[in-house]
């Protein structure tokens, strides 16, 4: 896909591979993400460390991310280096395996273990997402385990597994290539044909394990963690609808009304109002997962001296109010205005635009569907929000994760 925009002399090359941690079998958690690291360590015509050096050494910014759904790779370059970026991406799509070594795997395994320590283990509340996934999705479900994986599985990762992983999933027929910015479509299509055109598709790529779930949970789940945290904190979470559905559009608007900004219900009623929650740490947001009902996460941290039970009761009341007190026109228009700004901000860089197009092409089969998202948010009614709340936010489908400071249990 090409999205031409000549306003800055920069171009983004973005690849969405339709493989994420949802594809990982038991015993191989964290492999999709560790593999993402290996993609920066050289390929047939690119020596170890050369990938980074060629991108940054030509003025570019680059990164990659892995989530439950997919893995994306992207670099934004001064536009005279478009061809270089495409060559680098083709070389690691078609020629990674011969360059993979045990030494590289061992090194990146340690890097990823340090990433796990830095992001999840060494920070207060850092493991909340890991715990929420296990409570939200049943054992064996592709979203049950977190993308970062377990230390045990990472330690057991073998080189052959990664070679097979690449051969299975890193194929042109499992990838969407998007170029946005200072380049025309004829030029990009010709270059794409030159560098990717001869790469062989892989037949019979296995689908991810079944992720069907019939909506919200039927029974509540609860976990209380006593840890080195500075204040009690609660996460409430519900499975809602998959990203990309009308139901999830209503949840997106709902999350903004409920917990985005100082004008949101949570802020107005618990940070202001009752003053039982810390104003800097209250909010709600959806996690945009597309292959099963996606989570809505609602969180608040107790102010000094506030009992955690009082905070939970306050949260439950505000969540229940979405059904019992209809959303006002003012709340609805506030949420839509914030979503509109956020939408345009997300598309204001060539990187943001390329990634969004890649997402819609990968997940919905047609990049043009990107044009529907904002209008669909803007079409959500107060009734839609109430209906979404009544369907997804019932107490009996709720996950409640509570952190208590050590010595206060």
């Amino acid at each position, binding site marked *: 896909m090409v999205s031409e925009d000549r*306003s*800055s*002399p*920069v171009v983004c090359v973005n690849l969405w591979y339709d493989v994420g941690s949802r594809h990982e079998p038991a015993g191989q958690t964290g492999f999709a993400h560790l593999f993402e690291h290996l993609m920066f360590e050289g390929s047939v*015509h690119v020596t170890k460390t050369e990938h*980074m*050096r*060629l991108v*940054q*050494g*030509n*003025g570019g*910014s680059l990164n990659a991310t892995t989530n439950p759904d997919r893995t994306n790779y992207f670099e934004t*370059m*001064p*536009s*005279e280096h478009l*061809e*270089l970026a495409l*060559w680098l991406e*083709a070389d690691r799509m078609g020629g990674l395996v011969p360059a993979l070594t045990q030494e590289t795997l061992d*090194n990146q395994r*340690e*890097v990823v*273990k*340090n990433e796990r*320590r*830095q992001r999840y*283990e*060494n*920070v*207060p509340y850092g493991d909340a997402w890991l715990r929420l996934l296990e409570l939200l999705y049943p054992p064996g479900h592709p979203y049950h385990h977190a993308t970062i994986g377990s230390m045990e599985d990472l330690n057991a990762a073998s080189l052959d597994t990664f070679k097979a992983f690449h051969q299975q999933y890193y194929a042109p027929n499992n990838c969407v290539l998007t170029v946005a910015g*200072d380049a025309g479509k004829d030029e990009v299509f010709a270059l794409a044909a*030159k*560098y990717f055109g*001869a*790469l062989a598709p892989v037949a019979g790529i296995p689908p991810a394990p079944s992720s069907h779930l019939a909506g919200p949970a039927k029974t509540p789940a609860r976990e209380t963690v006593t840890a080195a*945290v*500075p*204040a009690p904190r609660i996460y409430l979470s519900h499975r809602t609808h998959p990203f990309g559905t009308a139901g999830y559009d209503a949840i997106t608007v709902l999350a903004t009304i409920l917990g985005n*900004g*100082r*004008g949101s219900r949570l*802020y107005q009623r618990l940070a202001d109002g009752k003053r039982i929650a810390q*104003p*800097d740490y209250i909010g709600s947001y959806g996690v945009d997962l597309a292959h099963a009902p996606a989570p809505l996460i609602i969180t608040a941290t107790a102010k*000094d001296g506030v009992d955690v039970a009082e905070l939970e009761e306050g949260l439950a009341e505000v969540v229940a109010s979405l059904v019992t007190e209809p959303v006002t026109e*003012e709340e609805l*228009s*506030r949420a839509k*205005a*914030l*979503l*509109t*700004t956020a939408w*345009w*901000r997300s598309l*204001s*860089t*060539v990187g943001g635009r390329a990634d969004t197009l890649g997402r819609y092409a990968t997940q919905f089969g047609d990049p043009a569907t990107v044009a529907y998202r904002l209008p669909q948010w803007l079409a959500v009614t107060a009734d839609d929000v109430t209906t979404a709340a009544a369907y997804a936010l019932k107490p009996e489908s709720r996950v409640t994760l509570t952190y208590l400071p050590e010595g206060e249990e």
Partner: protein
Amino acid sequence: MTLVATRPGTGEARPYTFPELRRVTVGGGTVIAAHLPGQRLASAILMLDAGAAHEADGREGTATVLAKSLEEGTKARDSAAYALALEGLGAELSPSVDWDSFRVGLSAPVPLLLDAVRLAAEAIRTPRLDAADVLRVRDDEVTALRMDWAQPGPRADATLRSDLFGSGRYGRPLHGDPTSVAAVTVDDVLAFHQAWLLRPGVLLVAGDLDSIDLAALGEAAFGGTTGEAHPADGPLLWSVRDHRRVILVDRPGSVQSTLRLGHRSPERATPDYVPITLAATVLGGAFTSRLNHLIREVKGYTYGIRGSYAMSRRFGRFEVAAGVQTAVTVPAIVDTLGEIDRTQLDGVTEDELAVARSWRAGQLSVEMQTPGAIVGALSTLVLHGLPDDYYPSLRKQYLEATVEQVSAAAAAHLHPKGLTLVVEGDAAVIRDELVAANIGDVLDAKI
């Protein structure tokens, strides 16, 4: 083979340009605007000379408490009505405090920018600042700082700052600490507002100026203001220490050690800005930097390690920052010192500098696509008195810097023997090894 073996060459580069700037003087203040045709969103920053440096001793954090109090209601409406009015435009304020300035940023769809700036000015110029609200915001800020200080990093940062800058405002954390914020009074906040937030300041705008009335924005931002800009103070005096010291910040049970290695360095106006930036890029700025290569890509001790110079109007400091696995704390420090030593003694190579030059130059395009990024670039011009053609000229200076210049800057501005090494980690596990490593005297942080 189905892959193309030959690495492609470079296409034709478009000439580098920075957006056209326009200036309007109105109501005692100046609007400086960058024209970005076709952008749907516009960004603005009202920049005031009201930085943390103006705070009184023992009341560090006053400006931050004020910044967080601005939206607790204005003379015209209460906090709930204010939030609905502003967020109803799709805008949110981002007030921030740094050493040299106090900024309130916002972005909004172009047709709503004027209304959003009017509301921002209402909060900045005429906040209600009821005593009870200010005290509540202050107490919340104390709690928020405690939350923040429970993370690895802030205590190490405060320890390094105190050691490098000593007593006085610059030796204390930018946003204060839980004790100093708890000491802030309502009168401190009101006085800070009266002294510093009623002067006109500068309004920076980036967006499609064909649809934006700059004079109207200026009238909204500067209406009712009085006073002059405060004359800039000169750089702080400083010298390099002649010995190393290690300061241990205990974080029991920590699975990583947080490293903050630093020393003083020149302020932003230094004529060596370009070569020392490039030297730091080679040492610890780029992914392929010496530090990241050795400590992450060869040794696997960390998820990432960075080295950089931070430069404000009155001071500068060199710092290396990383989180390393607890068990390899000392080897990681020893390797890090080795790379700093080597860079100071032997300088950089042409291959390394080529990457640093092109990266820094390219980033001036790649990281400046949005109204938010451009308005941030304008703030740098204003804060440091730089000319309108600064960015094109900076790009040229990066591209023309020589190995000799950058190596000379590394030799002059890296001081491995005068470093303070702050290590925040599980003292029970790492102390003995740190002492035995004989890097410098090991002290315990008073924090």
